[in-house]
Each structure stands twice: as C-alpha cells, then as structure tokens.
C-alpha cells in the first residue's frame, strides 16, 4: 500500500466521476442515465475508501456503507418511477418524454 500513492486512486476516481457526468449529459435512455449516476456515486465511494484507508480511520468506510444504502433506496424508487412512466407512455427515452421542454 505504501507503494502506491493515494493520488493514483484519486485520479482514477476523478476520471470515473467525469465519465459518469458525461454519460448523464449525453445518454438518452433513462435507465442508462441512472446507471451513469451510479457510476458517479461509486467514484465518490472510491475516493472515500482511499482517504479512509490512508488515514487509518473507519469513518469514510462507514460513509460508503450509507452511500450504498442510499443507492439501493434510490434504485428501488427510481426504477419504480421508470416503470410507472413506461406503463403510461411505453418509452424510457428521455427525449421522447417531452410534454414539457427538457
């Protein structure tokens, strides 16, 4: 562990974060957009675990625990919303969902 400086982990997490943001902005399928958001959350988790491990404190890892709980709750609700919208409109493309302007 001493061999790898923490910067490498952080750069990787920043990269994943940027990729996630790009995905949210360019993808059209609501489920894929949501997956990109999960990627963003995971990049945050990676940074948290890296910091926590290099500090030798558990707080960051416990935070990751709660992030996972929240992600699970969000997945349950978000996919339910997507199902509800699919039932009414039969599409999940956020471009086609435009009674309002996006």
């Amino acid at each position, binding site marked *: 562990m001493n061999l790898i400086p923490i910067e490498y982990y952080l750069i990787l997490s920043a990269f994943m974060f940027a990729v996630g943001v790009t995905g949210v902005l360019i993808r059209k399928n609501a489920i894929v957009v949501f997956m990109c958001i999960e990627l963003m959350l995971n990049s945050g988790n990676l940074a948290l675990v890296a910091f926590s491990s290099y500090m030798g404190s558990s707080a960051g890892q416990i935070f990751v625990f709660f992030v996972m709980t929240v992600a699970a709750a969000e997945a349950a609700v978000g996919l339910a919303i997507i199902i*509800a919208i699919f039932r009414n409109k039969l599409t999940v493309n956020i471009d086609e969902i435009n*009674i309002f302007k996006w």
Partner: protein
Amino acid sequence: MQNHFQEIYNVLPLVLVACGVFLSVVIEIGSVKSEKILPWFSVLVFLGTSLFSVFNLNNCGTAYNNMLSYGGNVFIFYSLFNLAAALTVLSSMEYIKKYGSYFGEYYILLLSSVLGMMLMAGARDLFMVFIGLELMSICFYVLAGINRKKQNANEASLKYFLLGSFATGFVVYGIALIFGTAHTTSLEVIVSNFGSLSHNLLFVTGMLLFLVGFSFKIAAFPFHMWVPDVYQGSATTVSGLMSTGGKAAAFSVLLIALGAVFPGNAANVFRPYFAAIAAFSMLYGSIVAISQNNLKRMLAYSSIAHAGYMAIGLAAGNRESVAGIMFYLVAYTFMNLGAFGIIAMVEGADDTNLELKDYIGLSQRHPLLSALMALFMFSLSGLPPFAGFFGKYYVFISAIKADLTWLAILGVVSSVISVYFYLRVIVYMYFKEPEPEALPVHNNANGVLAVVISAILVVMFGIFPGTLINLITSYLR
C-alpha cells in the same frame, strides 16, 4: 438510563415525527378507515411537534456524539417545517380526491420527508446531512408522481429524480474530498478549521462540488432546469411543500455547513460563487416569469428568483444575513404555501383552471380567495407591510453591510421587474370582465383554513417583524 431519557427528550421533535411515520404505517395497514384518520393524525403530529419545538427553544445543545444539535434556531427550523407540512396536509385533503388517487401513503411520505428535513436542519455531521437530504429527496421523488395515472406527474417525478440524484452524485464526491482534506466528517471541526483548510485547494473543490449539489436543491440559476417542469407537473400541494420546506431545509444546511452562524466566517472564499448564482437567479427568474401564463409555472420561476434573493444573504455571510435568510425563509414559506393552496383550490380535475385567464373574475366568484391571493401576491413581490418585504429588507441590508451594494441594487431592480407579473394576477382577478362560462370554485373548508392561517402569519410577520428577527438573532452565537 437517565442519560438516555434526557437525550431522547432533547431531540423529542425528531422522535415525535419518527413515531408519527411508524404509527401512520401501522394505521394504513391496520385500519380500513385510514383515509379518514391519516390526514388528521398527521396534522396532529405536525402541530404537536411544531408547538413542542417552539416552547423548547432555550434548551440548546448537541446530542448523539455531536451528530445532531437541538434548540435555538434548529428548533425554529423544525417548527417551520412542521407548520408548513400541517398547512400542506390541510389543503391536500380535498385536492387529492380531485384526481381520484387517494392514497394513505401520501401522508406517510409527507411525514417521512419532514423527518428528512429535520435531520438536515439539525445536522452537525456530514452523515446526518447526507441521510437527511436523501430521505427528504426520495420522499419528494415519489410525492411528485403520486398522481400516477397522469403523464405530467410521471414526467415530473422522473425529471426530479434524475436531476436530484445527479445532484446527489456531486454531493457525495464533494463530501469525499472534504473528508479527505479535513480528516473528519464533523461539521463543527470543519467549520472551526475553516481558516486553514480554505488554503487547501482540494478542500475548496470539495466544498464547491457540495455547494453545486445543494444549488440544485435550492433551485438556483444554472441548476434550475428541473424546477418549472417539476412544479408544474406534480400535485399542486406537493409543489408547494417542495418549494418551501425543501428549499428551507437545503438553506438550513448551507447556513450550518458554511459556518456563517459562527464568527470567523467562511463565506469569503465562496462569495463570488454565491454572488454569481444570486445575481443570475434573481434576474433570470424574474424575467422569464413575465412570459408565463400558467400560474404554477410562474410561481416556479418566482421560486428561482427568491432562491436568488436568499443567496444574496449567503454571499454577504455575516450575522445579519443569517438572520435575514431565516426570516426570509419563514416569510416565503407561508406566502408561497398560501398561493399554492389557493391554486390547488381553484384547479379543476385534469390540470384545468391553471391559466392566468381562468382567474378572470375570481373576485366575484370567490371574494375571500381572491383577496387572499392578492395579499400573497403583494407579499411575494415584496411590497410593505407584508412579511415578504421585510425578508428582502433584511437580506439587502446585510448585503450593503458586507460591501455588496451592487448585489442589493440588482435585487431591488429584479424586485421591481417581478412586481409586474405578480400584480398581473391581481389585475386579472379584479379588473377584467369575466367570461360567462367560467368554472365555479368548490368550497373547501380545510383548504380555506390553511390559506387563512398562512395569510394571518404573513400579515403578522409583516407587522411585527422585530419579534422573530430578534428571536433568531438572539440564538446566533
């Protein structure tokens, strides 16, 4: 054991609402008449919590390993959230029936969302901020789409969900960087070390990402794109609560997280950021609202503008501005809830009667409602002697004290612009010839009660603003 009870008593408002959530689920499961019991049960819980908070303002401190603080301004926020939710329940009772989607779950989710707001306002630790934020947001995602047969509601809920969890992504990454540079999640420690930490650029980046996430939640300018659609699409009463309680909760976190509550304040580093979002939100909200004909959409843009006025206070970042923002939040909550309450009553089934032209001649059909609507519109536009005026007044004064006179002037300019579209509603109600086939407004005692209570509060805080502002200031350390 003694300690445990004392600790529970200290955070009793939270315990009350949590028990409220629990019992309401039990009622929903156990009783066939839950539809009749649950609204009144939740009103009872909200009012009880609100009163308890008001009467225990002086019992200040922190509980549970510095996770949560109680007393003082935190309890003022608690009672604000609970009152707002109680008024929302009162005006929802008839409204929900209009759409034929009467769910007891509506009230359970309202209770849970208030629990989340309270956790946010009392948080002294990033853990509580995060969990509270998510509890509130998840309930709002569902509440936005509670009319699940309506396509508009589905869409509002999807948009709110996607952009809300996008914001969560920023918040999580921001918290990760803050944790990594400050080596702790305790807000107290972060705030007291802020001076040295703010030289660490990584920490500032983390804070900025955190603030971007919260700018989504308060609906400030570059992060506002969800606001009009979501407020227009969701159930009117829910929009009312989202725009008031949700905003107040997000601001309460910003006030704590920035440590503006404490001397040696933190706002200086972020002053350009807040000044920018304040200026843009005010102008954008006020200017775009002019061209709106749908009342819910107009109030959505006005909500962006109001977020801008409050952000002026964040940019100023002194004691006066914290008190000013809190006063503004109280005033905005009641005037906006009142306006949304009236819209909910006038609204017919299937999104009818939401256009400005539907309000022509309301003064003859329903004099009381139109008089109250006029009152709320005056207050929202910031004309004295209503609460809205003093909210703006305190915030602008604090900005001038912090040498941000240009921002205060911009605020005044945008208030003047906003007078146009608020007063237009009044002109439509009073000075236009009604069409014969206008739809009647059904009488609805609970809804009227909610609106009247909000109106009384708006007038009261407008005539005696000193009481509240002195109270808030006395709790600022």
